[in-house]
């Protein structure tokens, strides 16, 4: 069926991010993903009679941090409300949430798609507690409840309906996750559910100013699936309109295997959650001093770092982008350049041998066995001519990874990798080579300068790779002139 009109897709996202606090939002239970079920459950988490919540101040700090990084306005007068509903994994029968009075208002996240930059406005960021987990497939007859997660602090980041395509949705989520990770606010792991995304989507004919009826797609478990869900759903909605069908407000889920969305329930009546201020928690004021302290604690974000890398350190735009893509990589890189001012070399080591090792071993940078200082020492060894880059990266580095406590220079000596650069040890080798290739020497003298590299290569071979190529070159030229 041919589409008769041009349509525009309008997308808004609600993203839940679990905060990296040590304990829960309203009690001292530890947050531990993957722990045995119901092992981090105090009487408070279990909502035993008589228990009361007590606020975790660290969570507020994290929420404000994210708000500041997203250019939000920070609300100083705050309180928590109760959102009342019944569900077995909600032990109190209400969720404590800032839903009605978010701590961060407005703000935006910048995205770049096909070279065009856009600011995606945020509606708000608010704090709330997570529910437990209902596990429906562990037992044939029963639903099992794990309350370890109940009470984990979350922030909900709600965008305005500013996104217009699946690619923008992808870019927004990528940027959002990068921010959360840069700020150390959330680990951003969508598979483990520490980052969860609901998509609100509608379509309208281009030029139309009113929004179409929206559909909500719940619980997308990867950025890629969010993108695919938008593609699939916008097509479904356009097809419905083209067929003259009426779109009803629905909550749907995305089946990644079949690439379809499935209706979960119609949303004709809005739920009545009977919000009211939680009388167990006193309202709290955020002092300017507190907000300033958080502002100062925010680490340099990607844009800022790129500016420094390309400016002060004269790295290419491309390298800077690659180095800053993950905060931890950028941090490691910056730790190297604390010990060396050869920024370009440091960048090459990061994007070359270090990156390869991480990829081959499927590890994150925090699992890289060598300290940044040792990598800086490798750079210095190469820079001073004691070691060639190739033997440093292909021979010394693997050795050091096996022996992380070894001293790079000592190891290079022990492993017999130090370059020969004194004429007295190189000259006999050069003489050997020139004698063996006497014919080629004649060709060189007749003007075939290209054979020089053959001589260098032969000398290298004889020195078992330790000859300093620069010095070798100079000595050869001298001899050939004679």
């Amino acid at each position, binding site marked *: 069926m041919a589409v008769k009109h041009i349509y525009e897709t309008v997308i808004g996202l609600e993203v839940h991010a679990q905060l990296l606090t040590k304990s829960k939002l309203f009690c001292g239970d530890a947050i531990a993903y993957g722990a045995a079920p119901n092992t981090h459950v105090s009487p408070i988490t279990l909502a035993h*009679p008589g228990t009361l919540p007590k606020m975790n101040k660290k969570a507020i700090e994290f929420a404000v941090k994210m708000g500041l990084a997203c250019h939000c306005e920070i609300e100083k007068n705050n309180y928590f409300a109760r959102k009342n509903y019944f569900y077995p994994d909600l032990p109190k029968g209400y969720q404590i949430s800032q839903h009605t009075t978010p701590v961060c208002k407005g703000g935006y996240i910048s995205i770049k798609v096909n070279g065009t930059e856009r600011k995606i406005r945020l509606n708000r960021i608010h704090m709330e507690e997570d529910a437990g987990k209902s596990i429906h497939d562990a037992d044939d007859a029963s639903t099992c409840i794990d309350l370890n997660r109940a009470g984990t602090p979350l922030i909900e980041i709600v965008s305005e309906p500013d996104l217009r395509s699946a690619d923008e949705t992808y870019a927004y989520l990528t940027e959002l996750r990068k921010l959360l990770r840069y700020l150390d606010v959330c680990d951003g792991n969508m598979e483990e559910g520490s980052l969860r995304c609901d998509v609100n989507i509608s379509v309208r004919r281009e030029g139309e100013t009113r929004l179409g009826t929206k559909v909500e797609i719940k619980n997308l478990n990867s950025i890629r699936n969010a993108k695919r869900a938008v593609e699939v759903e916008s097509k479904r909605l356009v097809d419905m309109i083209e067929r003259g069908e009426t779109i009803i407000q629905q909550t749907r889920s995305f089946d990644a295997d079949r690439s379809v969305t499935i209706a979960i329930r119609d949303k004709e009546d809005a739920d009545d959650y009977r919000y009211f201020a939680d009388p167990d*928690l006193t309202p709290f004021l955020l002092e300017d001093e507190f907000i300033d302290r958080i502002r100062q604690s925010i680490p340099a974000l990607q844009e800022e770092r790129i500016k420094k890398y390309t400016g002060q350190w004269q790295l290419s735009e491309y390298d800077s982008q690659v180095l800053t893509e993950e905060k931890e990589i950028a941090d490691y890189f910056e730790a190297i350049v604390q010990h060396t001012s050869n920024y370009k070399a440091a960048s090459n080591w990061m994007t070359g041998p270090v990156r390869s090792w991480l990829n081959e071993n499927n590890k994150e940078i925090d699992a890289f066995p060598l300290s940044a200082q040792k990598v800086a020492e490798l750079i210095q060894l190469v820079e001073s001519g004691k070691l060639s880059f190739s033997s440093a990266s292909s021979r010394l580095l693997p050795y050091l990874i096996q022996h992380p406590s070894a001293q790079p220079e000592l190891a290079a000596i022990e492993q017999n990798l130090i370059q020969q650069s004194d004429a007295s040890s190189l000259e006999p080798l050069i003489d050997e080579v020139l004698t063996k290739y006497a014919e080629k020497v004649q060709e060189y003298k007749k003007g075939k300068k290209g054979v020089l590299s053959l001589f260098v290569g032969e000398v290298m071979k004889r020195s078992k790779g330790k000859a300093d190529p620069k010095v070798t070159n100079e000595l050869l030229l001298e001899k050939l002139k004679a």
Partner: protein
Amino acid sequence: MFEFSSIEQYHQSLQEGNITCAEAVAHYLEQIKKTGRLNAFIEVYEEEALQKARELDNQRRQARPLGKLHGVVIGIKDVLCHKDHLLTASSKILEGFTSIYSATAIERLLTEDAIIIGRLNCDEFAMGSTNENSAYGKVLNALDETRIPGGSSGGSAVAVQAGLCMVSLGSDTGGSVRQPADLCGIVGLKPTYGRISRYGLIAYASSFDQIGIFSKNIPDAALLLEVMAGADDFDSTVSERPVEQYSSSLTENKKYRIAFFNEALDHPSLDPEISKAMKGTLEDLRQKGHNVQPVEFDLLEYIVPAYYVLTTAEASSNLSRYDGIKYGYRTPVATDGLTEFYKETRSKGFGKEVRRRIMLGTFVLSSGYYDAYFTRAQKVRKLLYEKIKLIFNQFDFIFLPTTPAIAFRIGEKMTDPISMYLADIYTVMANLAGIPAISVPLYTHSSGMPFGLQVLSGRFNELSLLRVSNKLMEQYPKQK
């Protein structure tokens, strides 16, 4: 035979060797058995109390340092968590539930060597004024067994009234300590909201609830308050202000500034005999040189409705946790789906009055009705708050009746909840405003039943409140 008059006296007798803690506990156990028909206790910790008493007797003989409440025999309302003990809030929905932790207040009593003798009957989830809404049956007033003891802490009041323990704890959300104290002829103290931690007190209405004390005299109440009050990491609403040594500073000779409301003393619902008695006391105090003055108070008609809107709203949410999923009663009926399961469990687990209040509270918070009820009631509360603040800028105390009438007959008002709610007219003010209040047993009605005088003071002014109450009890001793 052991006769209790005050904790101080008791401690003296212990020191002089005239009695032991074990003998005192044995005495109370016997009294409890004899008066079983009053139904004040839901459970008596017979063995445990005796055991604790013997340990304390040993400690005393070894001249080890003694706790402030050494051997004091205390009964607790069945809404207070006591580790490894059953806890039901007099409700079927908590059938068989054992608390896995202790309330902060209970911990503090035990640290000072109190002996907890048992759990006391009350209205289910502290909702009621007669102690007729209990899954464990009604409690009888020991002075006239055809009458109610008041509620919701009826068992706690009768336990002290009938000499079944030395002092007891209740909870006061809208008068649940002061009203039964009044109807039983004993002292009932509700401290300032936030003076005693609520951690471990089963919530009825969180912004109103406060643990309260029943005693025969003021010094005993002062001592218990002193032990239980103060900051607690587990309650964000409790005050961090230091706790005064109430019990050792009760004597004071001062001319007080006392306010009263003509709207209250001339209210049509008030028993004329109570009105007359109170007016007599006010006149007498004036003649003794105190500054006694009427203050205009035009909010009286609004405070009971505001109270019921706000408390039921909070209750509807507070009681959501009793859902049959995690603990307590669960319907044995095989239900079709989750909603049916909740309905069946909660309909059978909660009693009628509790269900009524949950529904009322759910209604006033529902969209479309929220502003007309909940928001307006909050406005009334704010107005009252301001008004009370103004009054205490000029006065030390407000004197009010505790209840409009003496204890009524069992069953008399069960069919008329509205008139029952309206009887809370004099007690809900202190909870709405968060101020401390006490019912002091000063009077005897022509029917032979007791009634009290209610004194209210400014926030955290318990010391003055206890001092004036002590003075009143000395100056106006009840004729026996």
